[in-house]
């Protein structure tokens, strides 16, 4: 889990982008306040996403916690709250709402999920698994059929999608360090992650809107 020092005490540049680090911190804090069971939904195992594998979340969301994704009809958004004075864990989760603003939002996942990607009719997101590890999940758009794809020793950072692969930095930073980690890619159709960088990265961008 990485450092999330305020910008005022960080050197120029470094530390000004830490979505996953923040998420990791929040998740760790939330685990203390709201034990996360990471229960799987009762629905059936989701089938593989259907091509074309076009991501309905913009590439720019990767640096912004991936709070939302939309197919134009439905918008999915993460609700991330953290209030020491007044914990509101019941609000935490992933919601689905009509993109035109009609109707009421429906919570489709009770636990925190970030880095939302909507690809091939499946919703992908990161959260923590039952072993408290940063993990990538997918589920059906109605919240059923949750399945874990991959868990890390480190923490997902800058998770993005491009042409059949997820790309991410496995952030191995300690609490007093700046983000750093190797870059990997994970085939969306299955298979192990592949390390593609020989050097550690602080920030990454991929994909194309």
């Amino acid at each position, binding site marked *: 889990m990485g450092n999330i020092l305020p910008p005022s005490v960080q050197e120029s*540049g470094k530390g000004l*982008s830490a979505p996953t680090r923040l998420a990791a911190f929040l998740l760790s804090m939330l685990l203390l306040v709201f034990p996360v069971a990471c229960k799987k939904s009762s629905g059936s195992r989701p089938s593989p996403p259907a091509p074309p594998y076009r991501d309905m979340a913009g590439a720019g969301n990767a*640096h*912004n916690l991936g709070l939302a994704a939309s197919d*134009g009809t439905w918008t999915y958004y993460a609700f991330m709250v953290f*209030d020491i004075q007044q914990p509101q864990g019941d609000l935490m989760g992933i919601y689905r709402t009509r993109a035109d603003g009609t109707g009421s939002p429906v919570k489709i996942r009770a636990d925190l999920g970030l880095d939302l990607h909507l690809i091939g009719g499946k919703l992908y997101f990161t959260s923590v698994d039952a072993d408290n590890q940063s993990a990538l999940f997918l589920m059906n758009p109605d919240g059923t059929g949750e399945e874990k794809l991959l868990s890390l020793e480190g923490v997902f950072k800058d998770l993005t999608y*491009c042409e059949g692969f997820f790309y991410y930095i496995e952030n191995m930073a300690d609490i007093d360090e700046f983000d750093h980690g190797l870059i990997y890619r994970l085939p969306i159709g299955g298979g192990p992650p592949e390390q593609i960088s020989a050097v550690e*990265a602080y*920030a990454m*961008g991929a994909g194309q809107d």
Partner: protein
Amino acid sequence: MFFRDADQDHFFRMNPDGTGLMQISDHPVDCIVPHGGMLYYIDRDENAVMRANLDGGNPVLMVRGDVASIDRINVADDYVYFSRWNFKRLKDSGLYRMRKGTLALEPLLAGWDDFNWPYLSIAGGKIYCVNLVPFVIGQIPVSYYRVNLNGTCFQLLWEASS
């Protein structure tokens, strides 16, 4: 794909399979967003939003933060969205967008009166924004809201108790 290395803070590109590694610049960059055949990012040395070709060439400074800090960017349609925070002139702090072609600047939510370090996710024609404030060892969210891409229909989804 593009990255900033953690050792020297230089800006690199490489092929999606990891081959073809090439340095683009020696500047520390952040929030790297490929969009519409161009590359958008924050140059922390310049404290500016930059645009470049997809190979990283021909970088153009779009807007500088000046005394304000440019925190984060996102890109949708014809606009680059960004936030900046100026502790000396709070009225200049806020959420802005800039038209990619003309570089015309448009304030969306201006005049934040608190420390803000927002995350700006975009989906379904709306910006989902989490504002953060300093905490003991970092930042914590203090508000979560969404707003249309043109700054209308502000909706506060959550706010921390004071």
